[in-house]
């Protein structure tokens, strides 16, 4: 039989994080609490003598499904705000009463049922080899259909997320030509610090006359104000000839 303490630990570890679905604001927090719920459920499966399902639960749910959810959350933008105004009037209360009602109904009815519990000396444990005999014996056709379903789902996801290209692809040649026609300098910009006495990224390169080339520094560093003008690396006699 299942240990009492284990049951209450599993109940706490599943129900408390699950309530974050109702009360938490950020979707990432909800996803992480659902991961916790899945781990708790895996423990419950192992406690109910289904170790294979417990492992599958960890691998499939916490490992794959919830991580997929997190990937999509990152893709969609973690800071998607949920608007709180109600389009349907009183929907929140109706939903609360409907869900609470079904919960109360189920709990009350289930707690009235008494079932004979199967308790032999060596209970039937859902080890992988035992499950495999059932899966690939009696339910082999279902397994094959499930395989087809998974392939169809994968192809369907690819089709749904595929974006067809509306304009012809621009080749590198065309892009280079357009840039030169627009009057850009055909030569690469010098790297920062190459001809200077200092090879850090925040120091401009010096041209052959010894003057700094300001455009050799990344404009990100310039915007942050993290550049140096290179004056301090010149010999003192030349430093008057350089203006910024």
């Amino acid at each position: 039989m299942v240990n009492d303490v284990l049951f209450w630990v599993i109940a706490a570890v599943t129900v408390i994080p699950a309530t974050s679905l109702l009360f938490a604001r950020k979707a990432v927090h909800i996803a992480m609490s659902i991961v916790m719920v899945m781990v708790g459920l895996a423990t419950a499966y192992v406690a109910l003598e289904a170790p294979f399902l417990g492992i599958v639960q960890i691998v499939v749910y916490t490992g794959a499904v919830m991580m997929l959810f997190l990937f999509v959350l990152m893709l969609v933008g973690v800071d998607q705000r949920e608007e709180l105004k109600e389009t349907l009037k009183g929907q929140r209360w109706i939903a609360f009463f409907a869900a609470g009602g079904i919960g109360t109904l189920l709990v009350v009815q289930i707690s009235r049922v008494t079932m004979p519990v199967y308790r032999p000396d060596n209970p039937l444990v859902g080890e992988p080899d035992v499950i495999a005999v059932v899966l690939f014996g009696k339910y082999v056709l279902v397994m094959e259909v499930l395989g087809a379903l998974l392939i169809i789902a994968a192809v369907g996801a690819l089709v749904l997320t595929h974006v067809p290209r509306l304009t012809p692809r621009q080749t590198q040649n065309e892009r280079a030509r357009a840039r030169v026609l627009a009057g850009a300098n055909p030569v690469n910009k010098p790297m920062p610090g190459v001809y200077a006495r200092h090879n850090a990224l925040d120091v401009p390169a010096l041209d052959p006359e010894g003057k700094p080339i300001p455009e050799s520094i990344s404009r990100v560093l310039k915007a942050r104000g993290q550049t140096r003008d290179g004056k301090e690396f010149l010999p003192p006699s030349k430093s008057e000839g350089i203006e910024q």
Partner: protein
Amino acid sequence: MNPMNFVILAAILFSIGASAVLLRRNAIVAFMGVELMLNAANLALVAFSRLHGQLEGQVMAFFVMVVAAAEVVVGLALIIAVFRARTNISLDEPAELRG
């Protein structure tokens, strides 16, 4: 402890998931509510499998997991497609169709 208690736990989790589906506007959060409902059903199946001493319940729970994995893949792809079209994944957006 009687495995029936796990069925009650499954009922509680199921109603939490159902209320999340009914209450939340964010499509991804509502989808997680659906996942929680599927898992609650799985817990009930495994508990019944333990009660009756038969493996069928565990096998069915395994099938539910596989179907749920396929469903998640397609559902999340749909959410991404909707997000590309509307830059929003609120479930209330279709209300604009009323005009």
